[in-house]
């Protein structure tokens, strides 16, 4: 939508929460996540995503399990933990609050 580099930090900061949102729907593996993000403004690369996911797992927002795939090696399927679900709910509330604040300040 926009390529203004000024918005880069915002996109970067939101990425973690968008991943929580993607995972919240169903268990996903990384290639799926990439595909989903590819269509949006938040297109990202493995080089960014893997370290981020490992950090989120360490902070116990997400977890993964190995699943056999029809083609190729087993894959890591990510899912939300209870902490991750709380975090996502908090984020959505906060996002709504930010929206209201921005709109109200404009008046």
């Amino acid at each position: 939508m926009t390529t203004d580099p000024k918005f880069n930090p915002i996109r970067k900061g939101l990425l973690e929460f968008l991943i929580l949102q993607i995972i919240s729907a169903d268990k996903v593996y990384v290639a799926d996540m990439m595909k989903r993000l590819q269509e949006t403004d938040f297109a990202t690369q493995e080089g960014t995503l893997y370290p981020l996911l490992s950090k989120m797992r360490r902070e116990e927002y997400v977890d993964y399990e190995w699943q056999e795939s029809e083609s190729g090696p087993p894959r890591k399927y990510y899912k939300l933990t209870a902490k991750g679900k709380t975090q996502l709910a908090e984020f959505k509330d906060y996002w709504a609050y930010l929206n209201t604040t921005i709109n109200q300040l404009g008046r």
Partner: protein
Amino acid sequence: MNTVIIINLNGNAFHLEEPGFKSLQAYLERAQAALKDNPDKVEIMADLEQAIADKCARFLLPHKNVLTAAEIDEVLKEMGPVQSENTADAGAAGTGGGSGPNPESKPGVAGAGAPKRLYQIREGAMLSGVCTGLAAYLNVDVTIVRIAFVLLTLLTSGIWILVYLGMMLVVPFANTGEEHAAAAGAPFNAQEVIDRAKKHYGEFKDSKEWRRHWRQQRREWRRQWREGAYWWGHNLQRNVHAVSSSAGYGGHLGATLLIPFLAVFNAVLFCALIAAIVSLATTGAIFGWVVAGSIPLWVSILILMFFYSMISRPLRHARRAIYFNTGGNNFYWFAAWYEILSTGVLILVCWLAYTHLPEVRDFFQHFTQNVTLMWNNIVDSFHHTVSHKPASGIDARLPAAAAAASASAFLALRT
């Protein structure tokens, strides 16, 4: 036709063309460096290798089982640069979403030009890589740096070599791709690494050409060195002649009077140098004059010492000329007189400074703390240059370097 290398990516075998292999190696090296402090480094590296393997698989067909360099480049471009934890959550903290604490993150630093650090670069080095590293740091041609080093060596009658030795001991080598990038201050990303790897490969391939070039340069160096030595010796001789031609009783008397003047001047100059170094190392400014922020402390000290030797060199020559001029046994008397005089003046200046300048008295009253402070500041300025090297490595080399530096300082001052 191209050499093919077989690699193992997280348990999958792949055939790669050699340049492609170099690119991949550089990429993974860079990933390792970025994840250096990450507790999940092994796991992330395995994930990355698996992702690369998945991407590579799509280029393979039943009758095509080798990956070309171009295909590897495309895969690595898709992968994107591996980001360390700190850059990864710098933005997250900015949104304030309640993510974990990240005291070290620097928002907005990701896109900025990479910090420059001084390294020794072995590639294309003649001795250790000090000059190549400095050339990359200062962004000038390495030949200019080498000429400067040779000139400085000649001007300081060889003392500058000790500075070189000191740098050889202290300045770390650029080993990883990331360190190479930091040496030149180049922005570091996957494409950059690929380009550099390719260039390196190209140079390696033409190593015959490379060797020839190197030999030629070495010959050139020897020539310059000889010429320089000749010039220096010739100049000194001329100096001596100039003084001795005006000899006779008057010249003798003039020389006798000149020596105290030289002694006083040299002693005062020496005190000024020491005071300037102390002032610089304790307050970061020379008598209140602030040095440009980007120059590390140890470089400023070297520059100061250089200026000192530039000023004292003609004086030294004049003194030598006087010694030679007087000739015979007088030589020793003059030398002894000069030494006694300059030491006396040195003590006098120190005493005057101690009694009249509160700053100097203050410095000597808290001598140990101040020396510790200076030492820490100087060591810190090295650490800053090599900030992501483990501290233990530099600590082991510092005493040796300090010894070399102080020896060079001492010799430069007393010859």
